[in-house]
């Protein structure tokens, strides 16, 4: 667990993953630097979610190396719970805890994991509610929220642990179009604050605006990656060109 301050936050090397006969990830290697915002695009079933979920061990790779923040999480002896405290994740379906209020959702992890006491956790939670612009929802049940509100609370919940890396798996795909903007706004602010972010999304406009790097997944492989300008305006890979022509004209 060397603290090599080489600014590489996430290091992925030769990772493979199969579900039975289905070879979902093929020899993926990728390095992500501190403060970098990486957007992953690609057709359905190409392995984007699987890749993202592997970064915090919700899926285990068959082989290869994954190092997050200096912790080799493919190593059995690594305390995965400790590593996860440092990696926030936002899901397509929000997954807010239905048995808690908004405030309790945000406070749960810091309090349970001994990071903050109750008073400090509540203070922190209220601050976060302010940054996602939902202060007045503190004490309501999560089921009374709209999709957009839910997703902003989910982001606040992940941020309560003060993670170094944030993972987003299609955070706006389940939202009504008019809600998408609010969530993307929160994510944009987060990117500007210097958070290291890995985002799977179909929001190409957002990718162009916010991404430092865009990665194109197809058939379990990274087919192309580069700056938004390179990927969107001068795609070299044939499949990427095909993919872009489909999504851009959709």
């Amino acid at each position: 667990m060397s603290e090599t301050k080489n600014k590489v936050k996430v290091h992925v090397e030769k990772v493979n993953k199969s579900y039975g006969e289905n070879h979902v990830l093929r020899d993926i290697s990728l390095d992500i630097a501190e403060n970098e915002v990486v957007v992953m695009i690609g057709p359905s079933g190409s392995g984007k979610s699987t890749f993202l979920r592997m970064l915090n061990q919700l899926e285990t790779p068959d082989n290869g190396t994954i190092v997050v923040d200096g912790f080799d999480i493919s190593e059995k002896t690594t305390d995965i719970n400790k590593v996860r405290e440092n990696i926030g994740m936002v899901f397509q379906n929000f997954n807010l805890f239905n048995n808690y209020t908004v405030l309790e959702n945000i406070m749960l992890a810091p309090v349970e994991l001994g990071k903050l006491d109750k008073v400090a956790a509540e203070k922190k939670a209220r601050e976060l509610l302010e940054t996602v612009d939902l202060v007045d929802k503190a004490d309501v049940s999560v089921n009374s929220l709209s999709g957009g509100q839910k997703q902003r609370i989910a982001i606040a919940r992940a941020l309560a642990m003060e993670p170094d890396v944030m993972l987003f798996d299609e955070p706006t795909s389940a939202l009504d179009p008019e809600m998408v903007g609010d969530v993307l706004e929160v994510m944009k602010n987060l990117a500007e604050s210097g958070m290291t972010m890995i985002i799977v999304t179909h929001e190409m406009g957002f990718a162009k605006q916010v991404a430092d790097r865009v990665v194109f997944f197809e058939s379990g492989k990274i087919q192309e990656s580069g700056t938004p300008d390179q990927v969107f305006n001068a795609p070299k890979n044939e499949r990427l060109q095909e993919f872009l022509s489909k999504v851009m004209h959709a």
Partner: protein
Amino acid sequence: MKKTVKLLIVGLLSLLVFVITSSDVDAAPTPNYIITTDATYPPFDFQDKNNQYTGIDQEILKTIAKRQGFTYTLKPMSFNAATQSVSSGQADGVIAGMSITEERKAVFDFGTPYYRSGIGWAVKKGSNIKSLDDLKGQTVALKTGTSGADYALSVQKKYGFKVTYFNDSDTLYNDVINGNSQATFGDLPVIQYAVKNGTQLKVMNSKSPIQAGWYGFGVQKGKNTKLLTAFNRGFAEIKKDGTYDKIVAKYLGASATKFTGSKQDNSSVLGILKANNGAFLKGLWQTMLLTILAIILASIWGILLGVMGVSQNALFRGISTTIIYIFRGLPLMVLAFFIYIGLPGVIGMKIPAFTAGLLTLVLNEGAYTAAFVRGGFAAVDSGQMEASRSLGLSYAKSMRKVIVPQGLKIMIPSFINQFIITLKDTSILSAIGILELTQTGSLIVSRNSQGFRVWAIVAVIYLIVITLLTWLSNWVEKRTRA
């Protein structure tokens, strides 16, 4: 709130330990035998109006014990449980109006045969029917499912009578007395005992029972020879000095006396309640105690099994599935007999009926609980667990803080349902002789023959308790939703 729940559980657990250990005290050191009986068989074994066990068997046994210098603890239960307890070594002897048969001789050693019984027939007092031949064209009243009924049918053609059926002896006797039917067949001592209690019938063959056989006191084959010797010695003595005849005459002699309380007590619901309120209350208390302990322990056990059933560990899941499969598949009564009668032979330790009954309920209701608990947890969206794990919470913490509370909420209606089933299932444990509400009812009915009224009382008590239980559950449910 949490503290009081914890306190409550600790309190109930210690109560359980107390119940188990205190009933163990029964097993005193020197020759105190455990004798089983079926106390629903007057005039041999039944409860008198003061809820004391009495009858021909019981008086014989009591007298012999006193004279031969041994003590015993009487365990009344169903006839089958009474005999099996002895053949399995759970109890030392059985006296229950049990006929000596070749089959039973293979498992029991019998003492000196003590009573010659068989089928008897009776007519209305003053009737001019003198022999079976006079029954031609007449109607014979029979109680369904008795050996008397079987016998009557086997000779129906020969004597040319018609038959009519009854479920309850009192109504049957009245039918004969009122002249609707002219005769009845049944166990000879049972009819004699009815006459003794004032039924206006005349027994036609008191001295010559049909298909006669002997009753015997039984111990496990090859065991307890000391007890058997003492019984035989004592029996020879009371036979010789006339005590035996006195006992039999007391129950079957010609002059009528009442063992079963006055007519008034038995002919109205209020009278029955008054005469037996102590017994009903005790039965209710046993039912409640069993229910409450079983509900709490089965819920704890069921939740534990259910959590194991959704565990990440395949071994735990396998164990949970197997236990649920076994104990959901076993009928409650089979399980009760197995634990009460079968298990002691294997572990070499006697298990008190209450403990065996409670264990039975916990295993059976616990398995049902586990099944819906497992289902309830599985019904919680898998995203909840993923979100919790992604924040760094351990599996155990995620279960406790996120999955279990949501799962339990889904399960509340199932829990309430299971509580009510548990209450009803306690009645099955009457078979191993736990004196709960149903067994109390059986004993009272066998004494006063007021089946309809007594069972109506028992049914109403159950309904009241179930209503209270439902209210309580709904109240708790509302509180947890708030």
